[in-house]
Structure formats: structure tokens, C-alpha cells
């Protein structure tokens, strides 16, 4: 019996998606939709409105009007008729995530910006989130009594947290981020299989409408899967990514199938949007790479940085941070690798002067005082306003 079930499951898994079966997913919201203020949905919108006001001034928000405008333009490319209703906020959090609240408030985390390799991949996520919004997935999910229970628990934890999490008092209480994460129920990860698949389909059809490369949607998930596979945890840490469904493999298979159908219907070449995307996020690259290093997930981060390098993204900075990764990890052979990456970084205009300090530190620890001194001199020459000048000058007296 179990063999039969398994065979059925396998057949279902490899079942091809026919072009005829690709029926367009239609929005369920009218433009300028406003819920009845006396109902549950109206209540949720009110909570979200307050959370959004606080989010606007959150110190975790990346304050870059040009980036906001760029992202909003992308939304307008994907869904011209609904774009005035969707607001987008970039949040400095080094994990892959995006969330959509039922009132059209979208959050994009910097960990996602770092991992999306081009405009098409980013747009696949934006389109996916738009799909959740226009198909009213969060409200549908809200109707589930079980979910109401967990929502109540969430709020209870939030209130108790202000008192009980004192031992982590830097985190005392739930932040507005978390309350708006409460739009996590609209997160890219938090829906059920049917809603996720529907949002994937919605996203990719918007990609095709906008003339962007649809095959990039599956590529994003493929590289994420590879990155998590490269994690060096003995026991894989349960992550949002893995706790989600549909399983990444199934998701990739479906997205590839949709892509083939949609591409065959296009009569023009699809765009990747590589240059515009890279230009827009390059100003935040150092912060994003630095936040990623601070997670101390070396296996995963190494994979990510090397794939950025392979794609030619900010080579000076990425080489520098690969150097940082090896210098900080301190496993056998890491020092030599770190030096190689620093030297490679020097070849590019966008290299960070801090790499001279890192090299100086490494030479100092090797008691190679002459080379250390030279690197520290270069560091101070390139960054005369360095706030750690006194400490560097102290290092330069060591061994003399």
C-alpha cells in the first residue's frame, strides 16, 4: 500500500505542466480597495497602518529615497494599475526575506537584495509578494481559526516580552519591526502550499508581462538552495527558508515549467536588468556584506560571496570581505587565503581601504613588523580621517 502511495506521489511530482493548463491568475482586489472599517479586515488594516507609521522612522530602515524610487518603479513595471497602492520599505536585516501586509505595505530585507542577482530575480520576489496581496492570501489565512489562535499567542508574547525578556534587555519588548513582521503571515515563507504556488505563478506572469527573463525566478531558488546546502552547521539550523513549503525542488520545477510556457509566448527578448540593479544596490554593498559576515555562518557566506564574485558584483568589496571571512575564521590555510583575497581586491577600484588595516593586523600577528607597519601606513594614508588612528599608531610602535 505504502509503495502505491509513493508511486502516486512520484507521478504527481514529475507530472508535466501543459501550456493549456497555464491559466492566468487574476487579481481578487479591485484597484483602490478599502475594507469595511467595522470588520475584521478593517481592524487588521488599522493595526498595519500604525505599524507602517512606526516603520517609516525605524532606524533599521535603509534610508535611501533613490533605492525606494527604483523599487517602486519596478513594482509599477510589474503591476501598473496597482502600483500606487503598494508601499515598499527596505529593512536592514541580513536574511533572505520579503513580507507583504494585507494593506499593501511591503518589506524587503537587505539579505534578499544581496542574494537577488539581477532585476529579474528581484522582480520575481516582488511579483510573488504582489500576488499575495492581490489574491488576498493573508485575509484568507486569517479566516482560519487555528491561525487566529497563533496570532493571539503572538500578541501575548509581545506584551509579555517587554517584561519577561529582560535578560535580553536590548530586545526588551517587541519592536515595530516585529509587529509589522506580524505581516509575516503575509511573508514569502509563511503561507500554505497552495498560496505559495499561486503567488509564484502570479509573480512569474508579472515578470513575463514586464518583459523580464522569467527563467530567473527558478534560478533565484536554485542558488538559495545551493547556499543553504553549503552551510557548515553540523545540524542544519531550521530556517524560514526550509520550514516553508512548497519544497524548493518542487517550486523550482514549477517555476521552470511556467517560464518555458511564458517565454514561448513572448515575441521579444526578455531583459535581465543587471546593470540598473547593481548600480542601485552598490552603495549598500559594504553594509550588506559586513552584516552577512557578522552572522558567522562561514560555509554559507563563503558560497554566497563566491557566487557574487562569479557574477562580477562589486569585485573589490567582495574580495575584501572574502579576505575578512578567512581572516576571522582562522582555520588551517585561512590566513594565506585571506591575503590572496586582499591582494586581489586591491586590483579593483571599489576596494575598501580597510583591507590595509586587515593585512596589517595579520602581519602583526605573524610578528612581521616591517610589513605590518607598511600596511598600517597605507591604511592611514588612504583614510586620514580614520577614527581608530590612535590604535593603529599604537600597533605601529609594536615590535620596534
Amino acid at each position, binding site marked *: 500500500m505504502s509503495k502505491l502511495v509513493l508511486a502516486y506521489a512520484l507521478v504527481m511530482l514529475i507530472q508535466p505542466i501543459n501550456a493549456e493548463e497555464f491559466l492566468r491568475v487574476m487579481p481578487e482586489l479591485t484597484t483602490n480597495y478599502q475594507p469595511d472599517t467595522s470588520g475584521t479586515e478593517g481592524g487588521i488594516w488599522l493595526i498595519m497602518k500604525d505599524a507602517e507609521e512606526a516603520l517609516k522612522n525605524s532606524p533599521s530602515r535603509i534610508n535611501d529615497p533613490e533605492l525606494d524610487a527604483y523599487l517602486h518603479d519596478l513594482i509599477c513595471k510589474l503591476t501598473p494599475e496597482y502600483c500606487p497602492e503598494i508601499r515598499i520599505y527596505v529593512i536592514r536585516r541580513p536574511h533572505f526575506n520579503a513580507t507583504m501586509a494585507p494593506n499593501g505595505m511591503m518589506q524587503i530585507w537587505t539579505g534578499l537584495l544581496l542574494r537577488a542577482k539581477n532585476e529579474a530575480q528581484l522582480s520575481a520576489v516582488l511579483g510573488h509578494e504582489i500576488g499575495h496581496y492581490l489574491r488576498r492570501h493573508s485575509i484568507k489565512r486569517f479566516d482560519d481559526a487555528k491561525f487566529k489562535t497563533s496570532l493571539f499567542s503572538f500578541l501575548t508574547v509581545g506584551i509579555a516580552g517587554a517584561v519577561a525578556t529582560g535578560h535580553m534587555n536590548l530586545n*526588551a519588548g517587541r519592536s515595530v519591526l516585529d509587529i509589522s513582521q506580524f505581516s509575516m503571515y503575509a511573508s514569502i515563507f509563511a503561507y500554505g502550499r497552495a498560496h505559495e504556488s499561486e503567488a509564484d505563478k502570479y509573480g512569474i506572469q508579472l515578470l513575463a508581462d514586464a518583459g523580464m527573463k522569467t527563467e530567473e525566478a527558478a534560478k533565484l531558488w536554485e542558488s538559495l538552495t545551493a547556499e543553504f546546502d553549503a552551510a557548515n552547521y553540523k545540524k542544519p539550523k531550521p530556517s524560514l527558508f526550509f520550514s516553508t513549503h512548497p519544497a524548493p525542488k518542487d517550486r523550482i520545477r514549477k517555476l521552470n515549467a511556467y517560464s518555458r510556457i511564458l517565454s514561448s509566448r513572448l515575441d521579444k527578448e526578455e531583459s535581465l536588468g543587471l546593470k540598473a540593479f547593481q548600480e542601485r544596490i552598490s552603495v549598500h554593498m559594504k553594509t550588506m556584506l559586513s552584516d552577512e559576515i557578522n552572522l558567522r555562518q562561514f560555509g554559507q557566506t563563503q558560497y554566497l560571496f563566491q557566487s557574487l564574485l562569479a557574477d562580477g558584483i562589486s569585485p573589490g568589496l567582495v574580495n575584501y570581505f572574502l579576505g575578512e571571512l578567512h581572516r576571522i575564521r582562522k582555520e588551517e590555510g585561512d590566513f594565506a587565503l585571506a591575503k590572496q583575497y586582499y591582494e586581489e581586491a586591491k586590483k579593483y577600484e571599489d576596494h575598501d581601504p580597510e583591507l590595509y588595516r586587515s593585512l596589517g593586523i595579520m602581519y602583526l600577528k605573524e610578528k612581521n613588523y616591517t610589513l605590518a607597519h607598511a600596511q598600517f601606513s597605507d591604511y592611514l594614508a588612504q583614510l586620514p580621517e580614520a577614527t581608530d588612528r590612535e590604535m593603529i599608531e599604537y600597533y605601529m610602535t609594536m615590535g620596534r
Partner: protein
Amino acid sequence: MKKIVLLIIVTILGACSTHSIVTDKPQTIKSITVTPTLIWNKVPSNLSIGGVPTWTADGISLNSLSFFSDIKDGKTLIKATKKEQFPIFKADMLPTELVELIESTLAKAYEAKVLSSGNLKPLKLGNDDGFEYTFDFVAGDELPRRGYIAGAVKNEKLHIIFYQAARLHYYDTRVGDVRDIIKTAAIKE
């Protein structure tokens, strides 16, 4: 019967975590000795940062002074569970690397994001060569904070005094007092 009631009352009172006043006599926290002024209160360990000895002047959410003492080579600043990958202290770390260690620990434990970091400079902690630095950060509660750290490695062990407070008003109010305390600091041989 009276004894049982008394026992219950004492037990209940004992269960309440309370703050206690730090006197202006020399205070020894493991290997660190400091002499404070009379404005500090000991924070119960279940409320302290990373479970280490912590004091507050105006309330734990507004400011705190924590003592990370006697961190051995190969250990983390904050006790980590097996699943948590907190960065590890190595006895040969230079102050620049110790700053990285601290910032990464705060990022891992409290989702802290450093907004700006600076003024790393040498500092004598008692008779020992150490360092100090200041940084602005925001943790999970989204309150903009400023941190001031003084530390030193002695006998292969790391000792850190960590002051942090709400950037608005509270940091400046007590930082002078903190600097005075640090001037009195000594690390046991």
C-alpha cells in the same frame, strides 16, 4: 502553622527578583575591581545582558553597565547553546579584532546593528594595556543606543566593561560616571 505561613511568605518574597544598591566601596566582579559612585543598582541575573553581572542607574532598558570578566581562550562572550554560533575569543586577538568579536556577538545575540563605530584607542585598565571604543547601534527593540567599551586581555583572559544606554539623554547623563569608574578599574593578577 505560623511557621509554615512565614515560610511561604519568605519563599514568595525570595522568588521576586529585586535590584540591590551598589555601595561606593570597591566592588569585585571576578577579576575586575572598581570603585563606583552611589548611583548604581545591581540587576538580577535573569535581567542582565548575557547573564553577566550588570548594574543600572536609571533602569535596565535605559542604561546598563556590564562586566564580562575572565573570558578564556576558545570561549564566547555570552554563553551560547549548541545551536548558536557565537564568535569565539582567542587570546591573541588585537583590539580591532576584539571590536569585531563584540559587534558580532551583539548581532547574533540581540540582532544588534552597528550604525557607526569609532574612536578605538589604547587605554590603561589599571596597570594593563587595554582599549576603549564607542559605537552607535540599534538592537531588536529599535531604540537607538550608544555603547562604550573598555577592555583588556590579561593572562590570556578577556575582561570587558560594557556601558550602553539610550542615545537620547541617558548615554550622556551617565557616561562621565562610567569613565570615572573605569579610571578606578584594576584587573587581578
